[in-house]
């Protein structure tokens, strides 16, 4: 009976069926059914996602999946965004490119996040992949516009080039001009992070003009406002657009010219759904976009240093808004207006305009977030910087919005208590995790004891990523999280009194997670060595910039600790300030 089953489904049929299965989780499940399914699946998997580039080696990936067309890799830990990971830590993409150059000649897509990319890597990409289509470099560094020129010159089928917030050495060369005149396939271009003052406007206009499929164009700050109209007229089919500097002179003769030109150009763009950029906004020019506002679903005003009245006017023109990024200039009043105008709002991010000021410079409090939680029934994702919070507000938010999936609250001053009751904010965050049963991502702040972790361990069963800073009293806090959060993949902790006990007692948990980061905590060097010794499939890396960890007593805490599961063993590209705790080193150092 079983033999008949395997003959009745030729490989080609199975392959065809598998081609409808896109998600990694499902594909992984398929490959575990039986040996023949494993074989068939591995030959037809086209997309690979590697959440930690050190969890597996390029060779292992290539050996198992020989026909890949799309690769996504992530490098540094998330806290690298906040300068907690020293320069030179790692995350180099070159070894991957070098191996894929030989193994995947038909590779089409490379997406990288927090990796070090060099011009050499970019040149290798340009040379090696004849059908290369998509390059996304998100929060990457290490390359210059020379590398981009190589991509532009060689990749005839390039569709997407996205430099999202990368740190690029902008040599102000005319890299854009390296796209040949015959090149017309651009669909998406995001160069908003380029910092040079120079931009080749004519090359940009010509490029935009000859690419009829261009849907996304995000310009950088150097592109002046009075040139935007020309660019938009070349591409009225744009769906997503990012301006450069949104400022021009206010002298009446200049203003009326620039404004009417701009307004006219925007009104031609009937497909526009997303706007961003808005550096240095001069409010008088904002009404130029009013004609497209009713269709906007996404608006990034997080660089727009305009005051609440102007923000209110703008958002009240955007009833279809689903995603808003904005500075805290919006204030509680602006959030109230947002709550009444934008009933489709799903994601809100409020950034601080003056994060290092001790006194508030704007009137934005917990009240704004409460109002949004009440007025926006579809709200799922929140990132909110503020200076005060109360348990009552958090409980209200939780009760209003049990459909929250991402909740990141940053009360700017660490260890700030509930401003009304002066108590810790344990109960408030406890309500969040208890009510929001699908919560996947949570960032804590304010005064917090071990109790909040007890709530998290008890209720946050779907939580995948947790960020903790200046919180907790003892190892019990960490223990609650490691033992209770069944879905936890990423845990990042800084400046908390968590030490050896909880970590060692929950060592097995570490193999079920992608990574654990702990900095300025109380984990001893001895515990790190022990973990490294006992857990061969987990890499334990100690980061010490001042002096080697073994030059002090074992009981001394390590400065930074990064633990991640890996089937590739310890890495070999570590800088001098990173020590790996593997079986050998544990013996050597003790």
């Amino acid at each position, binding site marked *: 009976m079983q033999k008949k089953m395997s003959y009745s489904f030729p490989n080609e049929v199975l392959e065809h069926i598998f081609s409808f299965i896109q998600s990694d989780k499902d594909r992984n499940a398929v490959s575990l059914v039986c040996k023949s399914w494993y074989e068939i699946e591995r030959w037809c998997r086209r997309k690979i996602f590697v959440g930690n580039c050190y969890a597996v080696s390029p060779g292992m990936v290539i050996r198992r999946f020989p026909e890949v067309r799309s690769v996504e890799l992530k490098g540094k830990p998330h806290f690298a*965004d*906040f300068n907690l990971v020293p320069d030179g830590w790692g995350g180099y993409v070159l070894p991957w490119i070098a191996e894929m150059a030989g193994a995947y000649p038909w590779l089409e897509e490379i997406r990288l996040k927090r990796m070090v990319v060099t011009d050499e890597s970019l040149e290798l990409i340009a040379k090696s992949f004849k059908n290369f289509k998509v390059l996304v470099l998100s929060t990457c560094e290490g390359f210059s516009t020379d590398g981009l020129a190589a991509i532009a010159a060689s990749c005839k089928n390039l569709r997407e080039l996205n430099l999202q917030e990368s740190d690029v050495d902008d040599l102000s060369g005319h890299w854009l001009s390296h796209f040949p005149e015959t090149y017309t396939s651009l669909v998406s271009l995001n160069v908003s992070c380029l910092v040079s003052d120079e931009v080749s406007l004519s090359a940009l206009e010509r490029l935009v003009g000859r690419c009829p499929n261009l849907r996304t164009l995000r310009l950088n700050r150097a592109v002046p406002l009075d040139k935007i109209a020309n660019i938009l007229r070349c591409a009225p089919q744009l769906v997503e657009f990012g301006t450069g500097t949104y400022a021009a002179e206010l002298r009446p003769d200049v203003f009326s010219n620039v404004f009417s030109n701009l307004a006219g150009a925007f009104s031609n763009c009937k497909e526009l759904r997303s706007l961003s950029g808005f550096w240095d906004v*001069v409010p008088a020019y904002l009404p130029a976009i009013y004609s497209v506002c009713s269709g906007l679903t996404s608006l990034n005003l997080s660089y727009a240093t305009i005051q609440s009245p102007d923000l209110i006017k703008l958002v009240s023109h955007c009833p279809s808004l689903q995603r808003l990024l904005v500075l805290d200039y919006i204030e509680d009043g602006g959030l109230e207006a947002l709550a009444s105008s934008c009933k489709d709002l799903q994601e809100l991010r409020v950034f*601080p305009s003056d994060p*290092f000021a001790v006194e508030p410079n704007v009137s934005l409090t917990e009240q704004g977030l409460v109002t949004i939680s009440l007025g926006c029934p579809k709200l799922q994702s929140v990132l909110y910087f503020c200076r005060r919070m109360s348990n009552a507000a958090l409980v209200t938010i939780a009760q209003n919005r049990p459909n929250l999936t991402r909740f990141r609250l940053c009360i700017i001053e660490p260890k700030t208590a509930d401003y009304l009751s002066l108590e810790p904010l344990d109960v408030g965050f406890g309500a969040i995790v208890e009510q929001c049963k699908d919560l996947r991502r949570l960032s804590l702040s304010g005064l917090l004891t071990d109790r909040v972790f007890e709530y998290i361990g008890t209720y946050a069963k779907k939580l995948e990523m947790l960020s903790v800073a200046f919180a907790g009293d003892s*190892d019990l806090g960490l223990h609650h999280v490691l033992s209770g959060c069944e879905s936890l993949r990423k845990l990042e902790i800084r400046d908390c009194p968590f030490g050896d006990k909880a970590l060692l007692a929950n060592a097995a948990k570490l193999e079920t997670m992608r990574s654990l980061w702990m900095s300025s905590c109380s984990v001893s060097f001895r515990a790190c060595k022990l973990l490294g010794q006992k857990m061969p499939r987990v890499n334990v890396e100690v980061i010490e910039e001042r002096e080697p960890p073994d030059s002090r007593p074992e009981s001394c*805490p390590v400065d930074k600790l990064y633990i991640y599961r890996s089937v590739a063993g310890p890495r070999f590209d570590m800088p001098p300030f990173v020590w790996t705790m593997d079986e050998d080193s544990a013996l050597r150092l003790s």
Partner: protein
Amino acid sequence: MELQLDLALSTPNMIKGFDLNNLGFDQQKEMGGLEDWNHAGGCFGDKDCLKNKRGFEQAFGNFTEECKAIPLLLWSGHPNEEEDHKDQKKRTSSTIDDMNDAEEDQVVGWPPIKSWRKKTIHQHQVGRIENNRTVEKDNGRSIYVKVKMEGVPIARKIDIRLFHSYQALTNSLISMFAKHQKCNEDDYTRYTLTYQDKEGDWLIAGDIPWQTFIRSVQRLEIVRNSG
């Protein structure tokens, strides 16, 4: 302490091992309260302090002499006025290095804002005159300047490049601060506009040509006339 990995694989009974009353170390000492930070106070002039951000060592005093206990800076306050001016001078060229200098006074990586965004905020907060090339080309880049009015707690930031004369600037400032001051138009004769130049000196605005002024101004302050 023993590593009990086999026990670690099953979770439910682990809570037993963690009796809050019997954790084996002094919990009082472990709980860094606010008092510890007030002791930490200021460490402004001490370069070693700035380099080592292990503030919690002092609070969670488990650690022996080998571990340097460096108090955490600046929980209790922002640099005072003088410090502020000194830092402002350092920030005239907005390279990342200078920015990191200013931020060594703060906790590293807190608040959690991406470097990319911090760069932009930083450029908004002080006069942004990046390098000579930019100024000479006069390509219309913004120059953001902080404006403070005596008696008004909240400072503002304006883009000096949007104005073409002292008159235009003053008019705009009057309307901006009128919201906060609730005084009559007449009262404005009682105020003087002053500015801090590149050398750090405070001068009365209006004496030098406008174009020279905008290249030199770092901050503005509206002060009450005496008498």
